[in-house]
């Protein structure tokens, strides 16, 4: 006898996923060796550090010049690193786009980009560039550049896959050679969005370069680590203020610029949120399961 209702869709995947989830959490929570007895003193410790950083004695204002200078070094590392990443990633993105090359090549390229992305920039600095070029800003810049290639290449390849095929056909019909077709049929369509991703990456890279100093790769991180290790909290406070203010200012300027670039032509107007979402989420939904759901990293 058939019921009027359709049968429930299978819940098996959901059950398996739930079981894995519960098991993983239970394992982690039960076996991790955390000194949980330390937790109660956290609020008072944090409050203590916070007060020493910002109130008594107040942040060391005479230290501002030095703090600002080393933050600027971080910004420079991020800027040049982003340029390196952008230059290297653009040609790779063309190879990674399904509609430009064969599936074999684009898949291989995507895997390569993924592999680059898998290693955090601090690790790239520690493992590759500090041994090669020595401690300092150079190593940081190269680490950021290399790591950015992975994300930028992937995002740019996705933009290229979304082009309107019309101009490409037109360029081909007009007798354009392969490179000319890319230059005149594809590049003008994708460049605004790709430049927006470059700017977005620059914002992320500022955060990354601010900490690279922790391993000796230049920038503000070095001073910050020193001040925290030697408990010079009044300096740490100054450094944190400088990092926050500079980061937010650059974010705001770059966000404004990104909106201008995307909206400039007067065509479709994805919002800032949608763009940022897309940068994060196309990472988040690698493979396109959600597609553009909700409009849409990081990071």
């Amino acid at each position, binding site marked *: 006898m058939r019921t009027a209702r359709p049968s429930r869709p299978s819940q098996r995947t959901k059950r398996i996923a739930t079981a894995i989830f519960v098991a993983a959490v239970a394992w982690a929570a039960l076996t991790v060796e955390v000194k949980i007895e330390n937790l109660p003193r956290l609020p008072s410790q944090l409050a203590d550090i916070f007060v020493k950083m910002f109130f008594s004695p107040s942040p060391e204002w005479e230290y501002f010049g030095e703090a600002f200078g080393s933050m600027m070094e971080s910004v420079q590392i991020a800027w040049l690193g982003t340029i390196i990443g952008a230059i290297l990633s653009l040609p790779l993105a063309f190879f990674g786009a399904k509609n430009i090359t064969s599936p074999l090549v684009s898949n291989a390229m995507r895997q390569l980009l993924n592999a680059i992305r898998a290693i955090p920039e601090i690790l790239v600095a520690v493992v590759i560039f500090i041994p090669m070029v020595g401690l300092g800003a150079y190593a940081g*810049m190269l680490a950021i550049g290399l790591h950015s290639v992975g994300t930028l290449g992937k995002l740019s390849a996705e933009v290229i896959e979304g082009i309107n095929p019309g101009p490409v056909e037109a360029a081909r019909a007009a007798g354009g050679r392969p490179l000319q077709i890319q230059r005149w049929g594809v590049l003008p369509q994708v460049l605004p969005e790709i430049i927006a991703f470059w700017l977005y990456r620059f914002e992320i890279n500022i955060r990354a370069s601010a900490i690279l100093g922790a391993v000796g790769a230049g920038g503000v991180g070095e001073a910050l680590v020193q001040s925290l290790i030697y408990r010079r909290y009044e300096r740490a406070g100054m450094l944190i203020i400088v*990092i926050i203010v500079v980061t937010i200012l650059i974010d705001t300027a770059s966000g404004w610029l990104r909106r201008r670039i995307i909206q400039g032509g007067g065509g479709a107007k994805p919002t800032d949120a949608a763009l940022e979402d897309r940068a994060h989420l196309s990472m988040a939904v690698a493979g396109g399961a959600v597609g553009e759901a909700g409009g849409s990293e990081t990071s």
Partner: protein
Amino acid sequence: MTAATAPRSARPSRPPRSLVGPVALVIFAAITWWAASEEFGLNFDVPRLFSNLTRGAGILAEFWPPEFGVVPRTIGPMLETVQMAIIASLIGCALALPIAFLASRVTSPNFATYLIDRGILSVVRALPDVLYALIFVAALSIGPLPGILALILFNIAVVAKLLSETVDGVDPGPIEAARASGANRLLTVRWAVLPQVLPNYVAYSLYAFELNIRASAVLGIVGAGGIGNLINEYRRFFQYDRLAVVVIEIFVLVIIVEWVSIWLRRKLV
């Protein structure tokens, strides 16, 4: 008003040249010069870079062959890295849910809450996770606990930001329906908003978990538990063949987690 209309040219006239492009290029060049120059910046020059790289390439040879004998020593710290990521993702993503609702104009009870929540979020987001780890290490001494706390903050920053923007874009129909049927704010969020954003929330959380695996692998470099401690030890003693093993392990772990997470998102979302 008779015949004297000017002959129209066949082509429309060119729009006036915009100055935006050239100005942007000049600004770009100026910043790049500033960043690369000898007196203000990093003293970047390409020939030196290549000579540095070719000279340094010899050092990379020391990574090969990897000293796989250290694998047993690395398993414990690797597992700790995974544990930190799991616990921090769970707590961080759970906390991010209410914070995201408060940070969206659609669901925030009033404008002040919305502004304050947004402001706190952007400050939290401006600071990198390693800095939080450093501060927590200063407060609690080394170990996985400061690492977990730093990752929780990081998760809140990522997930709450993304989710609040998704909430901004929900379909207002169900919200109106819930209000019309007399639901209070909490009930409205629960029955009209949450079901709409749940798939995104799951996707963001899985994504955050992936980021956590990568982040927790390096937090140990500043003393916050996990495999990073070992990285520090090996690099300090120039044991590059051992470092190679750790890098390979992290790489494999990240790729596996990514595969599982993509598979889950496909199934669930």
